[in-house]
């Protein structure tokens, strides 16, 4: 599959500081998560790809086209949902989204139709006719998403889309993102501090640290189940249980509250674990093999690299 975003030694200097230090890599995922500590350069990367900052050296390509030369025509294919409040207060929701769609090049009639479609899609009903000034935070987020998709872009930049949303609204936003991701020919770049959001939506992850790439991984491949590690939550666990397990040649670590982590030897079966539990009058309430989660990938990436190249690409 052709890469969506290609970074070619991208360097960006703002003022006197070098924010992005020669990023190099290519991203192909349907939904690409962008993670990193504060100050790592996530916003700067997004702003550069949008054409707000000019690279000081190197370049980047979107859909194979160079952002240094083609950015104006590329913008037609891009949708952007900023992190901060971004709207025109004295316009109604529909008017605003229509306006933005026309500015992206849609003829007025099409813009009107797609604006309403976008509102229907994100789930804003009657409120679309009210002035944006009176919108609640959740509604503003949905309006921001509506303006980002109304002109039918192929690449969506979502910056903290679930910011400030209460749990049901957050769940809906995540579902929306997954639906959009499922559309053919659509790509999303999701920048978020919430690892869980990224984990639920993204299939590829770019982790930045100090302006360099700390990790670039395909989540599907990384999320391998590791059959060696087993996590248990029990009721009634006591040292006797641990002893029994160790007699089965398992390594056992106890975390209090009945939580246990086991390293299983070769050839052992779950049935034996349950037998051990029955022997000791312990009830197993949760049991699963350990999977490398995004949190592990992230923490690993944050550790100081020992002799790693500045690019840190795969």
């Amino acid at each position, binding site marked *: 599959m052709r890469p969506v975003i290609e970074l070619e030694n991208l360097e960006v200097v703002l003022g006197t500081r070098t924010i992005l230090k020669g990023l190099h890599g290519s991203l192909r995922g349907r939904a690409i998560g962008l993670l990193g*500590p504060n100050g790592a350069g996530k916003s700067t990367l997004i702003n550069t790809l949008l054409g707000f900052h000019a690279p000081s050296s190197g370049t980047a390509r979107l859909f194979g086209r160079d952002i240094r030369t083609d950015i104006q025509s590329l913008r037609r294919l891009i949708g952007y949902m900023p992190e901060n409040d971004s709207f025109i207060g004295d316009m109604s929701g529909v008017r605003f989204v229509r306006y933005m769609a026309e500015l992206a090049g849609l003829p007025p009639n099409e813009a009107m139709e797609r604006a309403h479609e976008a509102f229907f899609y994100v789930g804003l009903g009657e409120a679309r006719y009210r002035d944006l000034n009176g919108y609640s935070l959740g509604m503003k987020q949905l309006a921001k998403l509506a303006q980002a998709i109304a002109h039918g872009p192929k690449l969506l930049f979502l910056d903290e889309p679930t910011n400030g949303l*209460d749990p049901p609204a957050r769940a809906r936003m995540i579902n929306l993102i997954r639906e959009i991701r499922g559309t053919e020919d659509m790509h999303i770049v999701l920048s978020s501090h919430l690892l869980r959001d990224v984990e639920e939506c993204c299939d590829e992850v770019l982790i930045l640290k100090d302006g360099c790439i700390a990790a670039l991984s395909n989540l599907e491949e990384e999320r391998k189940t590791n059959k060696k590690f087993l996590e248990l939550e029990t009721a009634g666990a006591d040292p006797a249980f641990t002893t029994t397990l160790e007699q089965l040649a398992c390594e056992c670590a106890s975390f209090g509250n009945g939580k246990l982590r086991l390293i299983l030897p070769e050839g052992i079966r779950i*049935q034996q674990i349950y037998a051990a539990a029955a022997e000791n009058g312990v009830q197993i309430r949760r049991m699963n093999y350990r999977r490398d989660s995004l949190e592990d990938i992230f923490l690993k990436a944050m550790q100081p690299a020992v002799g790693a190249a500045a690019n840190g690409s795969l």
Partner: protein
Amino acid sequence: MAHATDRLIVFENVSKFYGDVLGVNRINLTIGPGVTSLVGPNGSGKTTLMNLMTGLIWPTKGYCRVLGLTAHDPERFFRVVGYCTQFDSFAKGLTGREFIYDSLRLYGLNAQEATVRTNESLERVNMMDAADRKVAAYSKGMRQRVRLAQSISHHPKVLVLDEPLNGLDPMARAESMALFSALGKEGLHVVISSHILHEVDRISDQVILLNSGYVVAEGQIHGVRDEVKEHPMQIMVRCSNPGLLAAKLFAQDHIVEAKIHDDRKGLLARTRDADRFYSLLHQIVLEGELEIDAVAPADDDVNSVYRYLIGSEGATV
């Protein structure tokens, strides 16, 4: 002799109206030491409750006492309470350090003590390096940390935090949660309001659910979950032969529903008695007819309780 209420935050029949608009209505709550999470949709009254707790507003009716004190006694009250709001505003031109130092001086500390405490709280939130830059130049996460530092700098006994993790990167989130947990163990009353339920779930001792100005539920999360009897416990089992498992489950009277996963490699069971379910599962595994891969309760957390009790109201407008 210290009264029991001297260690509690008490709301006694509290109502707050802003003209016609409802803030909270007939709240009765007792909050003890440790970490309490305040959960609810936007507009449910969380901010009102927090403003009442920190003495910024008076209740229209009823009493609110924090450790036996009210804002009628500002000298003592405001020393005891620390508030980290969700609003991202600062006086212009201040550096992070100045912001905390100035507020400490307002508490009456002398210059030396204020400096010591400023440094201490900046250390605790990892902002020592950036403390002398202007707040206007900070990123969102840095501003959040400075606000946090300010709220703990005067060593309050009650710490009220409104969306304290907003804008923080994953590591800062983990560090802050560890900090709140530690403060809770030190005996502070830490009240956290957050929308990221799985995070607060991990460190909270108590949870308070609000909706439309009323308290919908409060207490320990497992206890609350147990009380929601209209929604039987959901437990997920991944196994090789879900059909067989389902057949065995349906023979039991406490099983309400079994739904097989799309990939036919597991099922989701609903039971009125989790205990008996687990015992049954044990038995089945020991009999050797089934290989199971994973077992997990699917809705024993704040997220699910929220969904059941509050649902998706305040949603599509």
